[in-house]
Protein backbone atom coordinates (compact mmCIF):
# COMPACT_ATOMS: atom_id res chain seq x y z
CA UNK A 1 0.00 0.00 0.00
CA UNK A 2 1.32 3.43 -0.83
CA UNK A 3 2.10 6.05 1.76
CA UNK A 4 -0.94 8.10 2.85
CA UNK A 5 0.15 11.73 2.87
CA UNK A 6 -3.10 13.01 4.37
CA UNK A 7 -3.03 10.54 7.23
CA UNK A 8 0.55 11.48 7.94
CA UNK A 9 -0.37 15.16 7.89
CA UNK A 10 -3.32 14.72 10.24
CA UNK A 11 -1.16 12.72 12.67
CA UNK A 12 1.39 15.54 12.70
CA UNK A 13 -1.42 17.93 13.55
CA UNK A 14 -2.07 16.47 16.98
CA UNK A 15 -0.97 18.34 20.08
CA UNK A 16 0.03 21.96 20.37
CA UNK A 17 0.21 23.16 16.79
CA UNK A 18 1.51 26.65 16.15
CA UNK A 19 0.85 26.53 12.43
CA UNK A 20 0.21 23.97 9.76
CA UNK A 21 -0.15 24.04 6.01
CA UNK A 22 -0.43 21.65 3.11
CA UNK A 23 -0.44 22.73 -0.49
CA UNK A 24 1.39 24.95 -2.94
CA UNK A 25 4.66 26.26 -1.52
CA UNK A 26 4.97 29.69 -3.14
CA UNK A 27 7.01 32.74 -2.27
CA UNK A 28 3.83 34.45 -0.99
CA UNK A 29 2.98 31.48 1.19
CA UNK A 30 6.43 31.63 2.75
CA UNK A 31 5.98 35.34 3.51
CA UNK A 32 2.59 34.70 5.09
CA UNK A 33 3.80 31.81 7.23
CA UNK A 34 6.75 33.84 8.49
CA UNK A 35 4.51 36.73 9.38
CA UNK A 36 2.04 34.56 11.27
CA UNK A 37 4.73 32.65 13.16
CA UNK A 38 6.54 35.85 14.06
CA UNK A 39 3.42 37.34 15.60
CA UNK A 40 2.62 34.11 17.46
CA UNK A 41 6.10 34.03 18.96
CA UNK A 42 5.53 37.61 20.07
CA UNK A 43 2.27 36.54 21.68
CA UNK A 44 4.05 33.72 23.49
CA UNK A 45 6.67 36.18 24.75
CA UNK A 46 9.32 33.86 23.47
CA UNK A 47 12.91 34.93 24.16
CA UNK A 48 14.55 36.70 21.26
CA UNK A 49 17.17 33.99 21.03
CA UNK A 50 14.64 31.19 20.49
CA UNK A 51 12.50 33.42 18.29
CA UNK A 52 15.42 34.04 15.99
CA UNK A 53 16.39 30.39 15.85
CA UNK A 54 12.85 29.30 15.01
CA UNK A 55 12.56 32.04 12.39
CA UNK A 56 15.89 31.19 10.78
CA UNK A 57 15.22 27.47 10.71
CA UNK A 58 11.74 28.07 9.35
CA UNK A 59 13.09 30.24 6.52
CA UNK A 60 15.59 27.56 5.53
CA UNK A 61 13.06 24.73 5.85
CA UNK A 62 10.47 26.49 3.70
CA UNK A 63 12.97 27.68 1.14
CA UNK A 64 14.42 24.18 0.92
CA UNK A 65 10.91 23.04 0.00
CA UNK A 66 10.52 25.93 -2.41
CA UNK A 67 13.79 25.18 -4.21
CA UNK A 68 13.59 21.41 -4.28
CA UNK A 69 9.96 20.54 -4.87
CA UNK A 70 9.72 18.59 -8.10
CA UNK A 71 7.27 18.84 -10.93
CA UNK A 72 4.84 15.98 -10.42
CA UNK A 73 3.03 14.01 -13.11
CA UNK A 74 -0.46 15.24 -14.05
CA UNK A 75 -2.43 12.65 -12.11
CA UNK A 76 -0.54 13.54 -8.91
CA UNK A 77 -0.92 17.26 -9.57
CA UNK A 78 -4.65 16.70 -9.85
CA UNK A 79 -4.75 15.15 -6.41
CA UNK A 80 -2.24 17.36 -4.59
CA UNK A 81 -1.89 20.51 -6.69
CA UNK A 82 1.43 21.77 -8.04
CA UNK A 83 4.46 22.45 -5.84
CA UNK A 84 2.91 20.40 -3.06
CA UNK A 85 4.51 20.43 0.33
CA UNK A 86 3.48 20.22 3.95
CA UNK A 87 4.55 22.16 7.00
CA UNK A 88 3.65 21.67 10.65
CA UNK A 89 5.16 23.66 13.52
CA UNK A 90 4.48 22.20 16.93
CA UNK A 91 5.34 23.08 20.43
CA UNK A 92 6.42 20.01 22.35
CA UNK A 93 7.80 19.61 25.81
CA UNK A 94 10.94 21.79 25.92
CA UNK A 95 11.17 22.21 22.17
CA UNK A 96 9.71 23.42 18.92
CA UNK A 97 9.36 20.86 16.18
CA UNK A 98 9.28 21.93 12.54
CA UNK A 99 8.13 19.18 10.19
CA UNK A 100 8.22 19.48 6.43
CA UNK A 101 7.36 16.98 3.72
CA UNK A 102 7.48 16.73 -0.03
CA UNK A 103 7.52 14.20 -2.85
CA UNK A 104 10.92 13.24 -4.16
CA UNK A 105 11.76 10.99 -7.09
CA UNK A 106 13.45 7.72 -6.24
CA UNK A 107 16.70 8.55 -8.02
CA UNK A 108 17.32 11.48 -5.64
CA UNK A 109 16.67 9.60 -2.42
CA UNK A 110 20.16 8.18 -1.91
CA UNK A 111 21.95 11.48 -2.47
CA UNK A 112 19.73 13.27 0.03
CA UNK A 113 19.90 10.43 2.57
CA UNK A 114 23.70 10.39 2.37
CA UNK A 115 23.87 14.14 2.75
CA UNK A 116 21.70 14.14 5.88
CA UNK A 117 23.55 11.16 7.39
CA UNK A 118 26.83 12.96 6.81
CA UNK A 119 25.53 16.13 8.46
CA UNK A 120 24.19 14.11 11.40
CA UNK A 121 27.57 12.46 11.92
CA UNK A 122 29.34 15.81 12.29
CA UNK A 123 30.13 17.83 15.38
CA UNK A 124 29.88 21.60 15.75
CA UNK A 125 33.34 22.41 14.36
CA UNK A 126 33.01 20.02 11.43
CA UNK A 127 29.66 21.55 10.51
CA UNK A 128 31.20 24.99 10.65
CA UNK A 129 34.03 23.90 8.32
CA UNK A 130 31.56 22.25 5.96
CA UNK A 131 29.40 25.39 5.91
CA UNK A 132 32.36 27.61 5.15
CA UNK A 133 33.62 25.27 2.45
CA UNK A 134 30.28 25.18 0.64
CA UNK A 135 29.85 28.93 1.11
CA UNK A 136 33.20 29.64 -0.47
CA UNK A 137 33.29 27.00 -3.20
CA UNK A 138 29.81 26.22 -4.47
CA UNK A 139 27.88 28.52 -6.75
CA UNK A 140 24.23 29.35 -6.29
CA UNK A 141 21.82 27.51 -8.54
CA UNK A 142 19.69 29.51 -10.95
CA UNK A 143 16.84 29.38 -8.48
CA UNK A 144 19.03 30.68 -5.72
CA UNK A 145 19.57 27.51 -3.70
CA UNK A 146 23.05 27.00 -2.42
CA UNK A 147 23.16 23.57 -0.81
CA UNK A 148 23.64 25.21 2.58
CA UNK A 149 20.15 24.99 4.05
CA UNK A 150 20.44 21.67 5.88
CA UNK A 151 23.93 22.40 7.14
CA UNK A 152 22.75 25.74 8.44
CA UNK A 153 19.76 24.15 10.18
CA UNK A 154 21.99 21.54 11.84
CA UNK A 155 24.42 24.24 12.99
CA UNK A 156 21.74 26.51 14.40
CA UNK A 157 19.75 23.82 16.21
CA UNK A 158 22.64 21.63 17.34
CA UNK A 159 20.26 18.68 16.92
CA UNK A 160 20.11 15.69 14.60
CA UNK A 161 17.94 16.03 11.52
CA UNK A 162 15.32 13.29 11.72
CA UNK A 163 13.90 12.02 8.48
CA UNK A 164 12.02 9.26 6.74
CA UNK A 165 11.50 8.35 3.09
CA UNK A 166 8.14 6.64 2.60
CA UNK A 167 7.53 4.78 -0.64
CA UNK A 168 4.60 6.37 -2.50
CA UNK A 169 4.69 4.54 -5.82
CA UNK A 170 7.26 3.12 -8.23
CA UNK A 171 8.75 6.53 -8.95
CA UNK A 172 8.08 8.73 -5.92
CA UNK A 173 8.89 8.73 -2.26
CA UNK A 174 7.55 11.11 0.36
CA UNK A 175 10.35 12.78 2.27
CA UNK A 176 9.63 13.86 5.86
CA UNK A 177 12.05 16.01 7.78
CA UNK A 178 11.71 16.84 11.48
CA UNK A 179 13.82 19.62 12.96
CA UNK A 180 13.96 20.30 16.69
CA UNK A 181 14.79 23.56 18.41
CA UNK A 182 15.37 23.25 22.15
CA UNK A 183 13.93 25.86 24.50
CA UNK A 184 17.06 25.97 26.59
CA UNK A 185 19.84 27.32 24.45
Amino acid at each position, binding site marked *: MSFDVYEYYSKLNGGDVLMSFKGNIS*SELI*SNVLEVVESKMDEYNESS*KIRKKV*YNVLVESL*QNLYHHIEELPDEMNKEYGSKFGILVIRQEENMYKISTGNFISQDKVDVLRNKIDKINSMGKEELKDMY*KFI*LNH*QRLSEKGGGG*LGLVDIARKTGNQLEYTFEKFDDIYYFFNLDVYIDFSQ
Partner: protein
Amino acid sequence: MEALSIEGTAKTPSVKFDGQEGVIEIKGRSIPENSIEFYKPLVEWLEEYSGTPLDLTQVNVQLEYFNTSSSKCILDVFKKLEAIHKGKSEVIINWYYEEDDEDMLEAGEDYESIIRVPFKMIEIVE
Protein backbone atom coordinates in the same frame (compact mmCIF):
# COMPACT_ATOMS: atom_id res chain seq x y z
CA MET B 1 29.64 58.37 -8.68
CA GLU B 2 25.97 58.09 -7.94
CA ALA B 3 24.87 56.69 -4.61
CA LEU B 4 22.94 53.43 -4.51
CA SER B 5 19.89 53.53 -2.32
CA ILE B 6 17.32 50.75 -1.94
CA GLU B 7 14.46 50.69 0.54
CA GLY B 8 14.06 47.63 2.70
CA THR B 9 11.16 45.18 2.39
CA ALA B 10 9.99 42.22 4.51
CA LYS B 11 12.45 39.98 2.67
CA THR B 12 15.21 42.32 1.51
CA PRO B 13 17.45 44.76 3.38
CA SER B 14 17.77 48.50 2.99
CA VAL B 15 20.91 49.50 1.12
CA LYS B 16 22.84 52.76 1.14
CA PHE B 17 26.08 52.85 -0.80
CA ASP B 18 27.61 56.34 -0.76
CA GLY B 19 30.73 56.75 -2.87
CA GLN B 20 31.29 60.38 -1.80
CA GLU B 21 31.44 59.49 1.88
CA GLY B 22 32.90 56.03 1.44
CA VAL B 23 30.14 54.54 3.56
CA ILE B 24 28.35 51.34 2.63
CA GLU B 25 25.36 50.09 4.57
CA ILE B 26 23.22 46.96 4.45
CA LYS B 27 20.51 46.76 7.09
CA GLY B 28 17.48 44.66 7.96
CA ARG B 29 16.42 41.27 6.66
CA SER B 30 17.83 39.41 3.74
CA ILE B 31 15.70 36.34 3.16
CA PRO B 32 14.56 36.34 -0.49
CA GLU B 33 14.06 32.96 -2.17
CA ASN B 34 16.52 34.00 -4.83
CA SER B 35 19.03 36.57 -3.71
CA ILE B 36 21.08 36.80 -6.92
CA GLU B 37 18.77 39.35 -8.49
CA PHE B 38 18.77 41.56 -5.41
CA TYR B 39 22.53 41.60 -4.89
CA LYS B 40 23.50 42.06 -8.55
CA PRO B 41 23.31 45.90 -8.51
CA LEU B 42 25.27 45.98 -5.24
CA VAL B 43 28.13 43.97 -6.68
CA GLU B 44 28.06 46.06 -9.88
CA TRP B 45 28.15 49.30 -7.88
CA LEU B 46 31.19 48.07 -5.95
CA GLU B 47 32.85 47.03 -9.18
CA GLU B 48 32.57 50.61 -10.40
CA TYR B 49 33.53 52.08 -7.02
CA SER B 50 36.66 49.91 -6.92
CA GLY B 51 38.01 51.98 -9.85
CA THR B 52 38.32 55.11 -7.68
CA PRO B 53 37.72 54.20 -4.05
CA LEU B 54 38.23 56.64 -1.16
CA ASP B 55 41.23 56.14 1.15
CA LEU B 56 38.90 54.62 3.71
CA THR B 57 35.68 52.72 3.06
CA GLN B 58 33.48 51.97 6.06
CA VAL B 59 31.09 49.08 5.68
CA ASN B 60 28.18 48.66 8.08
CA VAL B 61 26.34 45.37 7.99
CA GLN B 62 23.43 45.19 10.40
CA LEU B 63 21.26 42.22 9.58
CA GLU B 64 18.49 40.87 11.72
CA TYR B 65 18.10 37.74 9.61
CA PHE B 66 19.73 36.40 6.50
CA ASN B 67 19.15 33.13 4.69
CA THR B 68 21.69 30.82 3.11
CA SER B 69 20.81 32.06 -0.38
CA SER B 70 21.89 35.55 0.74
CA SER B 71 24.98 34.28 2.50
CA LYS B 72 26.68 33.55 -0.81
CA CYS B 73 25.77 36.93 -2.26
CA ILE B 74 27.03 38.70 0.86
CA LEU B 75 30.29 36.83 0.36
CA ASP B 76 30.41 38.16 -3.22
CA VAL B 77 29.97 41.70 -1.86
CA PHE B 78 32.78 41.11 0.64
CA LYS B 79 35.03 39.72 -2.09
CA LYS B 80 34.66 42.98 -4.00
CA LEU B 81 35.59 44.83 -0.82
CA GLU B 82 38.56 42.55 -0.35
CA ALA B 83 39.79 43.49 -3.82
CA ILE B 84 39.54 47.17 -2.87
CA HIS B 85 41.37 46.54 0.38
CA LYS B 86 44.15 44.73 -1.48
CA GLY B 87 44.82 47.96 -3.37
CA LYS B 88 45.87 51.21 -1.72
CA SER B 89 42.56 51.84 0.02
CA GLU B 90 41.56 50.75 3.44
CA VAL B 91 38.30 48.91 4.11
CA ILE B 92 36.73 48.17 7.48
CA ILE B 93 33.70 45.94 7.87
CA ASN B 94 31.59 46.67 10.95
CA TRP B 95 29.48 43.59 11.65
CA TYR B 96 26.58 44.37 13.98
CA TYR B 97 24.77 41.72 15.98
CA GLU B 98 22.10 41.95 18.63
CA GLU B 99 22.84 41.12 22.21
CA ASP B 100 22.66 37.32 22.73
CA ASP B 101 22.52 36.61 19.00
CA GLU B 102 25.43 34.21 18.96
CA ASP B 103 24.41 32.83 15.57
CA MET B 104 24.80 36.26 13.98
CA LEU B 105 28.16 36.82 15.69
CA GLU B 106 29.31 33.42 14.49
CA ALA B 107 28.16 34.23 10.95
CA GLY B 108 30.33 37.35 11.06
CA GLU B 109 33.28 35.31 12.28
CA ASP B 110 32.77 32.86 9.41
CA TYR B 111 33.16 35.73 6.93
CA GLU B 112 36.08 37.18 8.85
CA SER B 113 37.94 33.88 8.47
CA ILE B 114 37.35 33.77 4.71
CA ILE B 115 37.78 37.43 3.72
CA ARG B 116 41.04 39.33 4.16
CA VAL B 117 39.51 42.58 5.37
CA PRO B 118 39.54 43.77 9.01
CA PHE B 119 36.23 43.07 10.75
CA LYS B 120 34.89 44.79 13.82
CA MET B 121 32.22 42.85 15.70
CA ILE B 122 29.83 45.28 17.32
CA GLU B 123 27.21 44.16 19.81
CA ILE B 124 23.99 46.17 19.83
CA VAL B 125 22.84 46.49 23.41
CA GLU B 126 19.22 47.50 23.90
